[in-house]
């Protein structure tokens, strides 16, 4: 029994190199910068210094290395109503957008998966087509559609459906439109990948056993597509929480999302420690859903392997 275990411990050099490259990449370009951000978040803000903070490690005059951790930035985040409300607003926007993406994306993914294989690729292509245009450009295009004398208002006025233009720009509505529009493909693709593999005879079997067609979808297709739902939801939720461009361009200035605060803190106030604290808090906030996702994936992987 010992022999196979020993073989498995020592990967061939080529395999080890292949595994090592992405790990080194992540270490150098993700983990180390993250640790630097973590360090800055505990530093003292020094507006006149360059960079504008005091390092947490300092040599005192008596030749002793002193570590000074400042929790001010974190305390500020917790006590400042602006930050707390931005947190809740970010999560609310991300959660509702995810739900809307799911409600819109699920039927679309289902329909594409049930198409004849030849037309399936065309529809998938159409889902991915917007990626060929710059993201920023597409969000700007929504300004043209949503603004007071924009396309939508003009059409509605012309059709006499409304008497005066609707205020859509700079509202939460515009933010939802922008996020749902931008992230819908990230919901559709994993759902499609899952639904496409379903065995349709299961639905026939359910009907055969006395289950109506709609109930059959709810009892069979829906639970079996849970991995797709989880993957799609996380792919939408995680970037939506930290979304910066869409709320800055389409949203109102009264209700800020957390990424906007972070950038203001960094670029306008030049308060690096506070900006870093926001960033670290955001990572922690997003870590929870990622861990849930990991657990779920491991479970389905194990089930598939067994």
């Amino acid at each position: 029994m010992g022999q196979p275990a020993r073989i498995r411990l020592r990967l061939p050099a080529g395999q080890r190199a292949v595994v090592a490259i992405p790990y080194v990449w992540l270490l150098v370009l993700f983990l180390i910068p993250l640790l630097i951000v973590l360090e800055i978040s505990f530093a003292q803000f020094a507006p006149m210094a360059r960079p504008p903070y005091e390092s947490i490690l300092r040599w005192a005059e008596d030749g002793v290395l002193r570590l000074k951790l400042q929790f001010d930035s974190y305390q500020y985040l917790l006590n400042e109503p602006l930050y707390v409300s931005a947190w809740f607003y970010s999560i609310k926007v991300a959660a509702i957008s995810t739900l809307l993406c799911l409600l819109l994306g699920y039927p679309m993914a289902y329909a594409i998966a049930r198409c004849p294989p030849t037309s399936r690729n065309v529809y998938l292509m159409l889902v991915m087509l917007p990626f060929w245009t710059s993201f920023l450009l597409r969000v700007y295009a929504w300004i043209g559609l949503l603004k007071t004398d924009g396309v939508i208002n003009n059409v509605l006025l012309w059709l006499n459906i409304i008497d005066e233009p609707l205020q859509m720009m700079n509202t939460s509505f515009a933010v939802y439109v922008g996020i749902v529009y931008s992230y819908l493909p990230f919901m559709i693709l994993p759902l499609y990948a899952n639904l496409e593999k379903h065995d349709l005879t299961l639905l026939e079997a359910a009907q055969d056993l006395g289950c109506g067609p709609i109930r059959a979808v709810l009892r069979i297709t829906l639970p079996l597509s849970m991995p797709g739902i989880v993957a799609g939801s996380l792919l939408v939720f995680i970037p939506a929480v930290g979304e910066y461009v869409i709320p800055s361009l389409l949203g109102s200035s009264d209700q800020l999302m957390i990424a906007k605060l972070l950038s203001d803190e960094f670029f306008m106030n030049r308060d690096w420690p506070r900006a870093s604290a926001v960033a670290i808090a955001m990572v922690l906030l997003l870590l929870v859903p990622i861990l849930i996702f990991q657990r779920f994936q491991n479970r389905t992987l194990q089930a598939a392997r067994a």
Partner: protein
Amino acid sequence: MVRSRNDGNALEPWSDPAAEPYVRISGVTKRFGDFAAVNDVSLDIYKGEIFCLLGGSGCGKSTLLRMLAGFETPSAGSVVLDAQDLAAIPPYQRPVNMMFQSYALFPHMTVEKNIAFGLEQEHLPKAQIAERVSQMLSIVRLTEYAKRRPHQLSGGQKQRVALARALVKRPKLLLLDEPLGALDRKLREHTQFELINIQQQLGVTFIVVTHDQEEAMTLASRIGVMNHGQIVQIGTPSQIYEAPNSKFVADFIGSVNLFEGRLIEAQEGQARIQCDELGGVVHVDYAVDASPGQSVCAAIRPERIHLLREPPEHTGENCVRGVVREIAYMGDMSIYLVQADGGKVVRVTQPNIARVTHGQRIEWDEQVYLTWRAGSPVVLTR
């Protein structure tokens, strides 16, 4: 296979003109575009039967089954089950259940939940569902596996879950699509008999679709042989084997030698067929429904032909000389391919009754005589 039961009449309701069929399929046709997958099929099936629809792939047997289940709508014709027309009834309301070829077990549910699924749809009380599920689990001997998921089961166990799931609903009619197709040979044989036992225990009418003639022969009370969307012959397994009504059926069920020839004499109680490809005359001792001069075909099973070294006392009729071209030793029997004087290669099987050592058995290129009884060939006109 004819099974032993006390009253002989109840065993063969199809031969009793007064018997009322349980399932009446009349004039059912299914067209896909111009192609008729099922073409004007009429069938009467009686209560408690195991009826096998047998045919090659694409013969329309599965389409017919799917129409009974309600997954396809007939283009024409009607299906009546227990005096109830099924046409307008959707699959989820039919008193019919199906065992799918792939079993179609729900992978996210335990064995128990899979079996309970159909009963939950009927909104039965929980206690009653639990009772019927555990009863069914014990019938298919899966009680210990109740909490397992389908992917944790072997092929044979999955098959039994699928059967239990369909039967727990107490359907009037159970449809089985290639029920043993996914099992290996040893398990198949065992499962066949188990299936028959469960069927008799519960008294449900079975309609089985299969392409495997062995499966059909062992399971069926009657077989319907299908070809090109039509039923070519209906009969008990022995009728289908012993009295095929066409070359297709004779060739499809078991192996057969087909001797093409011309009817030279047809009298009361006997007939003679000149077979040039055989180089002789085939004599049968029963009346043939054909007129002299007509082209006919004499079909004879390989095990009904005797292989002799020495010429029999009277050669001529039902005796053909030939040379052994191939021998396949199968253990319990041997297959000989003998080329007759007329050129035709005849397949003969002989049971290996005694343990034969070298020098005694018939060898390659040896001259032999083939004989058969006058009752053995079946004369076919189509």
